[in-house]
């Protein structure tokens, strides 16, 4: 999933020898007092707390100044904190691995980006994100296409009947027809899913598909009150196509795919 984009101007990298005073930032929420979320932070259950500025708060934990690899362990820790915070708050998620050198630097972030954060928090209020990946079984889809498409069926029969004499050209043509029919089928499934989920979501975003079996890799922004309706709709569609398609449905997530604040960040020296 993509997160907020941080533009880092070109500055030579500093030596990364940490003093342990850094702050790992998970998300920004609206809260006018400090708050302790317990020892659930990244890097071995660090205490998660807030750094406040007016009615905004950055949810952070202490960290040495290091670069965090996006290992599953680290990513899960980052996500777990955001999930915990999300139970009570609307949040703006920070990119994985965002480390500030000091509490003061975080305060400067809140202060200088106050208006943008406030606007986005208002827009994202009571909204959550769901991820939906759809994979298909190529063989089964091809089989169903050959069953339903007259032209393809005829051509295939012809090739099988005259196996010896069937031309390279006929085979090529068959391959091309199947390819086109598959693309059309894929588009049709995807359009159907989007159409079905339109009324129970606020927005959607399609990301690049992963691997050759995936036909949809999308994120949906959903009102909290519609969570159940969205859920039921997804189950309904996945049942309808269970023979051909595999649905991978995840969430609720913070609105990773729908928040795009360009933060003017630079490497701290």
């Amino acid at each position, binding site marked *: 999933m993509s997160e907020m984009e*941080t*533009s*880092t*101007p*070109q*500055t*030579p*990298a*500093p030596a*990364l020898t940490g003093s342990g005073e*850094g702050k790992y930032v998970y998300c920004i929420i609206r809260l006018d007092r400090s708050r302790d979320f317990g020892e659930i932070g990244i890097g071995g259950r660090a205490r998660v707390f807030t750094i406040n500025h007016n009615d905004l708060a950055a949810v952070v934990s202490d960290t040495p*100044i290091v*670069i*965090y*690899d*996006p*290992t*599953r362990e680290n990513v899960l820790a980052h996500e777990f904190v955001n999930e915990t915070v999300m139970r009570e708050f609307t949040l703006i998620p920070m*990119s994985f*691995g*965002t*480390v*500030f*050198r000091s509490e003061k*630097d975080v305060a*400067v*972030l809140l202060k*200088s*980006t*106050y*208006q*943008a954060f406030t606007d986005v928090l208002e827009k994202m209020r009571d909204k959550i994100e769901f991820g939906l*990946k759809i*994979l298909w079984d190529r063989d089964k889809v091809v089989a169903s296409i050959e069953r339903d498409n007259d032209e393809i069926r005829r051509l295939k029969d012809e090739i099988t009947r005259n196996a010896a004499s069937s031309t390279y050209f006929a085979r090529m043509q068959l391959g091309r027809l199947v390819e086109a029919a598959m693309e059309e089928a894929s588009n049709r499934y995807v359009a159907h899913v989007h159409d079905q989920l339109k009324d129970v979501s606020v927005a959607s975003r399609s990301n690049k598909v*992963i*691997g050759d079996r*995936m036909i949809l890799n999308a994120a949906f922004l959903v009102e909290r009150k519609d969570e159940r309706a969205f859920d039921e709709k997804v189950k309904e569609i996945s049942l309808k196509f269970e023979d051909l398609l*595999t649905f*991978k449905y995840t969430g609720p997530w913070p609105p990773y795919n729908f928040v795009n604040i*360009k*933060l*003017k*960040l*630079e*490497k*701290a020296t």
Partner: protein
Amino acid sequence: MGLLTNILLAPFLGPVWGTQWTLEKVDRVVREQLTDDTPIKEDLMALHLQLEMGEIDDAEYVRREAGIMERLREVREWRERFGMSTGGGPVRVADGDEEE
């Protein structure tokens, strides 16, 4: 940079200016490959999908993840060497202008 060395040591194939042009192009391609973490991130997502689909187990995931992290670190080092921006590491709000 094995590729560059191969080109440099290759038998003479054309006029000198041609070689010069090729070198610059190769240098650019090599540099792009060394500093682009997109394919590595795609591999990581594909690996994660395999785990989600139950095609590999946790142990296998962790084993292959280690290789991917190693490649990410290498790209990060090259980016730093070329003075390009890198994800991760301490950041702060840029000096000078206010937000947006």
